[in-house]
């Protein structure tokens, strides 16, 4: 199936731990994104990579570090997890030309920090 897939779907971890979320898209898109959705359902962009190059880096703590080994993958590593990091993290992708047709989102990773 052509899609944006994220792993894991659920992640429960203790404060202070380091964790990674992986994202892969097989749509042939050039640009990938990480969004965070808080408890009030507000989706806010965190990072954007275009063909492995970082082009958007919103005001996100340095504990969050994206890595793009190739244009089909964008992983998110989080160091020293805090309670406030609990949220749903969505990966998305879009073509460079035609991004006005919208982004394709993964199904999300629900992170709970205890």
């Amino acid at each position, binding site marked *: 199936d052509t899609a944006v897939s994220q792993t894991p779907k659920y992640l429960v971890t203790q404060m202070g731990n380091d964790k990674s979320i992986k994202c892969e898209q097989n749509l042939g898109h050039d640009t990938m*994104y990480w969004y965070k959705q808080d408890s009030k359902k507000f*989706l806010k*962009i965190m990072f954007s990579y275009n063909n492995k190059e970082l*082009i958007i880096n919103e005001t996100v703590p340095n504990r969050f570090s994206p890595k793009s080994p190739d244009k089909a993958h964008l992983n998110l590593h989080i160091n020293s997890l805090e309670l406030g990091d609990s949220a749903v993290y*969505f990966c998305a992708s*879009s073509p460079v030309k035609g991004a006005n047709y*919208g982004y394709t*989102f993964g199904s*999300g990773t*629900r992170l709970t920090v205890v």
Partner: protein
Amino acid sequence: QKEVEQDPGPLSVPEGAIVSLNCTYSNSAFQYFMWYRQYSRKGPELLMYTYSSGNKEDGRFTAQVDKSSKYISLFIRDSQPSDSATYLCAMISILTGGGNKLTFGTGTQLKVEL
């Protein structure tokens, strides 16, 4: 003040009703306007997109954009229980260095009751 404002609801309507969902925005750089639908514990999925002021219809859905007022709307005719979801307006701005950015409203939770 957020760049995109949207009434969070919840909005509850009877089956068959016409639903009107609205967003206002402040950033004149927004060029493309979209509506996403998000079911519980799923990723957002693109419902409609438009570029110019005016109406765009797709089945039971009509998207309306008024750039002069910085106001967009989504109308759902003959609403069905399966339309129960969170509806997010979203807007794309083109970045000066290349690439684009999708900014979301806070989402309106809609429930269509039998």
